[in-house]
């Protein structure tokens, strides 16, 4: 899973979002390190939909879309939620290893 994929899943974990909100959430969650432009972002979204991790959905608050401004909302599937959890677990584990090694290095110096 690429970093951007992880961040898109992460962005959707709080609830369904439309495309632009995904972009903003990714930027916020990553502290500005991930600012995908449209083409890149939607290829990731497409890949995640194809893989069954993300699905298109109704907006969470049940508000009907504005006429004229068609917005599509995306949400995590069950598989997506599990994939995100697994990845987070993996990142946590690797982060812990990193922290341990970095810590060990620090104490040694």
């Amino acid at each position, binding site marked *: 899973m690429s970093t951007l994929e992880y961040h898109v899943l992460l962005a959707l974990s709080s609830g369904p979002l439309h*495309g632009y909100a995904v972009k903003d959430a990714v930027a916020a969650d990553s502290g500005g390190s991930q600012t995908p432009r449209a083409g890149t972002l*939607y290829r990731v979204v497409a890949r995640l939909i194809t893989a069954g991790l993300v699905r298109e959905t109704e907006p969470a608050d049940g508000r009907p879309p504005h006429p004229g401004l068609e917005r599509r909302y995306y949400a995590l599937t069950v598989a997506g939620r599990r994939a995100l959890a697994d990845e987070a677990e993996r990142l946590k584990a690797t982060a812990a290893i990193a922290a341990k090694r970095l810590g060990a290095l620090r104490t040694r110096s």
Partner: protein
Amino acid sequence: MTRILACCLWLFPAAFRRRFGRELLVQARRDGRRARRRGRAAAAWCGVMSAIDLLRAGLLERWRPTWHEPAVFSSSEGPRMRDTLEQWGRDFRHAARSLRRSPGFAAVTVITLALAIGANAAIFSVVDAVLIRPLPYGHADRLLFLTATAPESDLPREFGLFDEGFVHYRERSRLVEDLAFYNAYTGTLRVGDRVERVRMSSPTYTLFSTLGATPLLGRLPVAEDESRVAVISHTLWQTWFAGDPGVIGRTYQMDGDPRTIIGVMGPQFRFPTDRTLLWLPDALRAADVRAEVGVGIPAVARMAAGAAPDDVARELTGLSRDLPDRFGGSAPYARLIDRMKIVARPLADEMLGSSARPLGVLFGAAAIVLVIACANVANLLIVRGEGRHREMAVRQAIGARRGQLVRAQLTEVLWLAAGAAVAAMGLARLALPLFLRLAPEVPRLEDARVGAWTLLFTAALALVSALACGLPPALRSAGPSVTSLRDGSRGSTGRRRWVRDLLVAAQTALALVLLIGAGLLLRSHARLSHVEPGYSTRDLFTFQIAPEQAWLKDGPSFARFSLDFMDRLRALPGVESVGLIENVPLDEGTASVRIRTEEMPLDGGVRVGITYAGADYYRTMGIRVLAGRPFTREDAVSALGNVVVSRSAAKRLWPDGNAVGRKLQVGRLKTWETVVGVVEDVIQIDFRQPAQALVYLPMTGQSPDQWALTSPAYVVKTARAETIAPDIRSLVREVAPEAPMYRAYTMSFLAARSMRDLSFTTLTLSMVSLLALILGVVGLYGALSYVVAERTREIGVRMALGARPERVRRMIVVQGGQVVLAGIAAGLIAAFFSTRALGRLLFGVESLDVTTFAATSAAMLLTGLLASYLPARRASSVDPIVSLRSE
């Protein structure tokens, strides 16, 4: 800027663009707007970066796609589809479920299509075997059938080639690679104790090389074999010799002479007819031929590659001019040769051409039935599509594209067509043997199989019909926009009704065309069975024997044998009278020779059929004696030179009347025969042809050593015609154990056989048009029933407001009647142009027979009104309260 970005979108694959294109643009524009707040340069920079991003992503997407078009239902069920195949698979599963929920609809459509496709498949398997498959010879397209024609002569319109031509053309022609003469007759085959009369041919030895055939076993004849060898057919080899390869080299009596078997042909080689069992090749040498106006023999030729039949005909006609110089011959011969033209046409046309029309008519009729069936199914699908109008609108509203909706509906029809194809193959398998049993003798018919080609044809037909009847309704019902959801109605129908009406009218028109065709054939059939043949066909049994006994050596001895034999026959229980004839009507044609009367010039004369008759032939056959007397026993045994002529022969030879007592000369004979009687004309071979002029010679022939009637046909008048064969067979075994009885028929069988061509076409076309009529009526009934169901509310209101039931009934019937009338009008126009396809199948009926056209139209209208009346009655019994509540 937006426009540039939009252009960048075209780098993406269409599927991706369709799904995300708009969002991509919205987002890129929004990025741009945000950047503008930070100044112009930032906005420009952002635009460039967005464009680069889109270009990069578009190319990447093409190189390594992330997006696949989901199936129709995937948007809600989760995108698991890998490719289009899986989407189709999903649609198919869904369609199967949806069909299982409406088994009635599925059954009706499958049966309708199966009947129509099955009929087509069965007829196709026959057409394929008989007409489409090339003749089983090498380069069959280069084989020609040759005859000659000599306008203004008294020879038949087309006659065979002369022996001297065989020698001459083979030596001189550049365009003809090889040439063979052939004939077909019945001869005696004797193998050990088994003696039978079988169909055989005595071709020139070149027949096999001309056709390009190779033997399965042994070798082919060459000129040096002269008349000592025989080639046998695969059938004979299997049935008489149990497929024993040791048969090569054995010698048997064949057609009276010992012949050594040198070859066995493969099962495909059947020439000139399917029933020919063996070939007794002859060498025809220049020294053997005499230049004379003979009977002429049919010929096949293999033309050089690249030649055309017309060129060959022209070359041979030119070469023929040299015949009198090279071979001599009389002045009339030279005159004939001078006028003679060679006719060359493809052998396939000659062998199969006569079957082409009946089969073509049937194939056309089956195709029409298929069109009717498709119209029927299309109508049902439209109705079903309207029932699912809302479902389609909902699916479209949740994002299904039109193509997906069309595909979803098409899969349903494809299921139905697949089911129909399977059922059709079964039907064709069942129908084909029945078809073959009824069919007249058609070359290669027995090769017809429901095989791989039929399967392919059926599959193709099913696919085409599925698209034909499924695509238009699918396109229509995938059309409605989301707005139609707003009114809670069951769907608009007024706009579509004309399509259904059109389909019903078309069905009616096509069914009417078939009915008219069948009607014309039925009338021809009736006319033909009422033709007066000049003889009775009831209570008559006929058979032939060909005795071979040492004392039978000339005309009088054969005549004595026949007279004694007939005395024995007459003594059999139940036999009224017995006669003898050389060529039984309806079984064999007669030879024709030049007949000259005393009044005609020396080299004059007219060509008239001749045959030999004896004993009580005329009384037995019920042929009236118009003047003079029939033959007596004295005429039979001694050459008194008496003959009997038929009415038209008398009229042709002595136009002034009164033939009895006049004299005539037969062929090249110098003796004069006296006419002792005139009898009624008989139809010799074909009920369609007028009776031919015929001269009956006495059974001894014109002089004792000139002619012997070696294998006459006997006719027996008896009420036991159907059952007398075994009695006669045992009598024959007693009288002539060496001579098997053959060509044993009742006359009524021969009469039926002579009409089999027409009977077969009539029967099958009648069945096919009945099918068409039923399908048409079902279509009309279905369409009107739906109209009634749809208008239940309106009818309820009308009746609540006081409309009388008769009025409602009339309204519906009139609506149906209008459609049927339009169909009948169109059908009459179509029939006007298409009935001439029946051509020579018709007899005594014009192809535009007013009675048939009127009667079938009336029948069609009546059936149509009846089909409308039933739904109308249902409409008028509508309870206003119930109907108003039904919404």
